[in-house]
Structure formats: structure tokens, C-alpha cells
């Protein structure tokens, strides 16, 4: 079974040179990749990656029946300067993922550009 921590490590390596940073309230920075919901006090800059803490179960049709597989939601979020498309392409090419779904940027509503992936086990 794939774990969120394993997926995090793979994504961190894949996007090593594209990841942005979290700026914590004390000014310290960390790579902007997190499993679950990051601390609301942290400010993300550049490309942020969020991985769902728990997978959802997906029924897969197989020969003579079906089986269950874990699917993790991974969200790539652009906070200002980042090459979101390039990162999305890299993730899509590396993982067994469904077609990425784009949430378009909307400055009026404050919506950041982001891609949502469902990465399968």
C-alpha cells in the first residue's frame, strides 16, 4: 500500500528545483510540500504541493471482479511566480494519475491557479 509519506518523498525529489517555500511566522522557511492541511499561519510562496493525508478508495475493475486501490489527491498550487504547467507535466508523466484537473486563477475571487491530481496506487 502506498503511503502519503512515500508519495511526499517522491514528489519532493521530482519537483526539487521547482518547489516554493513556506515562510513561518518566525521567518524560517521550509519547502512548500505538505501532507494534509499546512499551518494557517504559514505563508506559501511559489509552487506549493499538498497531499491528502488519507487516501480514498477506488474500485478497480479487474478480471473476474473488482479490487480496491488507494488514490491520493495531490494539489499543485501556484502562489505567484512558479511554472505550474511544467510541474503538472512532470507529475503526470511520473505517476499513475488521472488527467489533471485545472482550477483556473481568478483574481476577483482570490482563487489561485492549481492542478488537482488523483494519484493511484
Amino acid at each position: 500500500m502506498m503511503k502519503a509519506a512515500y508519495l511526499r518523498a517522491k514528489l519532493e525529489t521530482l519537483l526539487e528545483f521547482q518547489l516554493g517555500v513556506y515562510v513561518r511566522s518566525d521567518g524560517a522557511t521550509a519547502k512548500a510540500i505538505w501532507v494534509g492541511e499546512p499551518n494557517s499561519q504559514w505563508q506559501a510562496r511559489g509552487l506549493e504541493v499538498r497531499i491528502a493525508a488519507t487516501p480514498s478508495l477506488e474500485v478497480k475493475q479487474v478480471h473476474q471482479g473488482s479490487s480496491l486501490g488507494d488514490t491520493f489527491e495531490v494539489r499543485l498550487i501556484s502562489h505567484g511566480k512558479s511554472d505550474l504547467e511544467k510541474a503538472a507535466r512532470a507529475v503526470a508523466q511520473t505517476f499513475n494519475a488521472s488527467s489533471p484537473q485545472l482550477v483556473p486563477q481568478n483574481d476577483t475571487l482570490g482563487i489561485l491557479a492549481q492542478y488537482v491530481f488523483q494519484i493511484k496506487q
Partner: protein
Amino acid sequence: MADFVLKLNDAAIIQQARAAFKEANELFAREALAEIDAKKWDWPNETERSNGSVVGSPRNIVDQGGLKGSYQPDAKPDEYSHTWDADYAAAVALGAVLSDGTTLPARNWTEEPAKNLESNYEQLLEVKLK
């Protein structure tokens, strides 16, 4: 001259299959619009809607009706598409992170209707082929 001839024609079956697919898509649309109206969606806090009412959780996805009203069905001979072209539709369906750090939960009103589509189609086709 042949003594016994059996001719099979798939045209009638295909015609019924297409009619069932059309009806299944119409049912999908009705189910999806009903999902928008359903008070079933979790939301992290209370919100004052444009009519002045304060709503908590669970709630429907109707404020000014923009999302529901943006529905655009499109039917081609072999393809149906269902589009919600409100400029925040994807953010509602997939959830979104906002520039102020707020995270909006995903409320995909097409998820359950999409799960039902195949079985709806099978049932509609079965009735037509009897």
C-alpha cells in the same frame, strides 16, 4: 434457393441504445442540478448569503444561482457534454486554495450522478430492448 434464412440487423438495437444514452444523460443533468440544491455539503464556517440569510453546514451550493444557471448541455449524435461555465465552477467542484490562505472544500455535484450514469443507462436500455 435457401431453405432457411435468419437475418440479423443491429440497426434497431443501436437506435434503442442511442435513445437510452440520451435519456441517461438527461437524467444525469437532473440529478446534478438536484445535487446543487441539496443541503448536504459541508462547509467550515457560517456565511451571510446575498439575500441576507446566514447559512452554516451542511448547506446547498446555491447563493445567487450563478452556478446552477451556468449549466450548458450540448448534445451531438454520439456525445453529450455537460458544462457549468460559471468562472468559479471548477473551484467549487474541486475545492480551491485562495490567495488569503483559505481552503475551500470540494463540492463536486456531478460525482454521484456520474456514478449512477452507467446503471441508469443499463436500466433504461433494458426496458427499451424488452
